[in-house]
């Protein structure tokens, strides 16, 4: 379980806070999506979990703490913490001078697994994300955007983490592959019993993938709930507008499909 306990983050003295007193939690085995525009604080919140960002110290000795399974993350080494979590970011996150296999083997290597085990694990995770073994020796620059993103997911899973952090993981993937990749990631999350956090600006993606979602704006969480709850009761005009967009799209698309279908039926009837 991941818990943010009234955490804040201000990057510069004079800047508005990137995260402003947020308390939030992700249950074990749950997939939480954080949705919002850029600058809403969602990525900052995510990076507090693997300590790429340290929260500001709380006021009066309370708050300002992120916990995993009840344990304050600021105790212990950040490196060890990160090696226990999968982290997926946009495709630039692959190390450009390492092959696919080397990228995927990064965390197991840091964890000190023996060669054989690393090798076997690389094979396993590449298979999990649907990549052919023949790509192992390619460099990231020689892959398509979709392939790169699958390598990113495989790399995040290679160290057998209990927590999976994803920051806009499907941004650079073409629409056809995006759907398939979302389903696969959602499936892996469930099969492997992961506790996952997904950061996205795409409300549709959040509604489709998340067990629960947190809508963010200006460093604050406006609404938390299951997709159904948020759709039913946005509780805030901004959230309503955000939820409304994919809904309107979906309506118009289903209308289009319906009309195409009825056209086909009419044609079929007359011929």
């Amino acid at each position, binding site marked *: 379980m991941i818990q943010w306990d009234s955490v804040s983050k201000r990057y510069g003295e004079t800047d508005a806070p990137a995260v402003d007193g947020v308390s939030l939690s992700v249950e074990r085995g749950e997939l939480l999506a954080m949705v919002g525009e850029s600058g809403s604080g969602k990525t900052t919140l995510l990076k507090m979990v693997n300590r*790429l960002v340290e929260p500001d110290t709380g006021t009066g000795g309370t708050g300002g703490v992120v916990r995993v399974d009840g344990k304050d993350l600021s105790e212990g080494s950040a*490196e060890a913490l990160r090696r*226990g979590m999968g*982290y997926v970011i*946009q495709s*630039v996150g692959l*190390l*450009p*001078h390492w092959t696919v296999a080397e990228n995927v083997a990064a965390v197991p290597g840091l964890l000190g697994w023996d060669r054989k085990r690393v090798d076997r694990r690389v094979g396993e995770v590449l298979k999990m994300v649907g990549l052919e073994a023949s790509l192992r020796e390619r460099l990231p620059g020689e892959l398509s955007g979709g392939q790169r993103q699958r390598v990113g997911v495989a790399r995040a899973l290679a160290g057998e983490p209990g927590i999976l952090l994803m920051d806009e993981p499907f941004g650079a993937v073409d629409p056809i592959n995006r759907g398939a990749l979302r389903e696969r990631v959602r499936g892996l999350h469930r099969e492997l019993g992961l506790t996952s956090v997904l950061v996205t600006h795409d409300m549709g993606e959040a509604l489709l993938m998340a067990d629960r979602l947190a809508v963010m704006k200006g460093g604050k969480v406006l609404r938390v709930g299951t997709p159904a709850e948020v759709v039913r009761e946005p509780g805030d005009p901004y959230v309503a507008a955000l939820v409304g967009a994919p809904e309107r799209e979906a309506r118009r698309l289903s209308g289009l499909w319906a009309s195409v279908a009825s056209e086909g039926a009419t044609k079929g009837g007359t011929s």
Partner: protein
Amino acid sequence: MSEFVEQLGRLPVLLAWHVVLTVVAVGVGVLIAVPVGVLGRDRAWVRGPGLAVASVVQTVPGLALLALVFALLVVLRDLLAGWVGWVGFSALGFWPTVIALSLYAVLPVLRNVVTGLRGVDGDVVEAARGLGMSRRQVLCRVEWPLALPVVLAGVRTAVVWTVGVATLSTAIGQKSLGDYIFAGLQTFNLTGIVVGCVAAAGLALGLDALWGWVERGGVRRVQKRVGWGLSVWLGLGVVALGLLIGLGEVRFASRPAEAGGPGEVFELERVRIGAKNFNEQFMLARVIERRVEAAGYDAERVESLGSLNVFEALAAGELDVYVDYSGTIWANAMGREPGLGREAVLREMTAWLLAEKGIVCLGSLGFENAYALAMREDDAERLGVRTIDDLVRHAPALRIGSDIEFFERPEWAAVRDGYGLRFADQRPMVPTLMYPAITSGEVDVITAFTSDGRIMRDRLRLLMDTKGVFPPYDAVVLVSERASRDERLVEVLRGLVGSIELGVMQRANAMVDVEGKSVGEAAGWLVGEVVSDE
């Protein structure tokens, strides 16, 4: 053609030295630049001063930097010697060259290390940290390999620069391709100059191409995990090589006061003979060499040294013997005014050298090589100039050419102020070029040397120094404190005193400068002419 073949014969040794100097200097430069660059990447207080110092060093002219490092090494060695007794590194040759060249090599590498590291994509670095790499691991496995192409490009620049600057190391007694160029400029030997330049340029191009190949083919492999390790091992290997060569050099350097108690006989194994950068000096060094070799000593000539460098080197025990001129010591080292006669100058100088520097002056070779102002005979006739006094009136319309150091010497101040001479233009140049310059009318007056055979050839008139502002310039044999303890050697060298008359020296100089014979040939003739007391 045979001349060309003779020049080529020296190529392997000089080329090898040039390569060693370049490789060691760049290696040391890299070992300095990489840590500073890595530390300085995120720390402006390291980066700023580091780059500033490297840039300033870069602006110091090569010859000046070499002389500066030599002088500093002498001071340093004397200091160390004061604390711990004898310190055995040589302040001439290899070490000052490597130090100066390394300092030059730092800037391009440092700049590229900083640029390369700062140019690494921040997202990639964050991804690496997100995987759980420590700062060190991020640096070694991600940032360094990604910066490596830029770093290698910096090393490439450093290599090409160093090959060029290394040609100057001749001036502080280091063998390099510069020997061709310095000697060639001295004797106006175009073959030598061309061979030296072509060899240096070829070496620069060759190393550049080789490095290009390393960059293209090697980077991909090196960029993998071995990147850091390989770089470090390469650097250490190069420096180890340099140390080995340096240690080899130390054996040549001054040995401790091995002369034991009284009664024990001290024998020098190897006699290091110095020479300044002109033909007469080259020939005299060879005369000394023949003589000490005939007496059973090993001899080594260290040529083309600057006037001040060679004196300091003798005082510091880097050299054992060379020929200097009394007026030079009188004015430069002692800082005395002219006015005394030959004998008095010789006497006071000898006493001063022994008391202040421990240098033993054995006496005059028998001729004077004095500075004198010279004009074209027809000009002098037309203007009616016979003495320096006559020249004063015409000087503001005339240009004077001189060797590179004359205008910095006290003699110039003496003659200028003593007579009130003001010329339209002062042009320092390599002594060899003074004669073509005056015959072709580029300059109207030159500072000639009285023993020079070209005065007659080029129909120049020497102007009389009626006020006696130029000191006497007896050619004197100077022996270092250490060598002077070898009594047999001193006796051997003493045999040279009074053995060369002015006419003989002029003739030998003319053989090279006028008749185009090689220095070796003329020296051979000179050895035969030396009046022997045996």
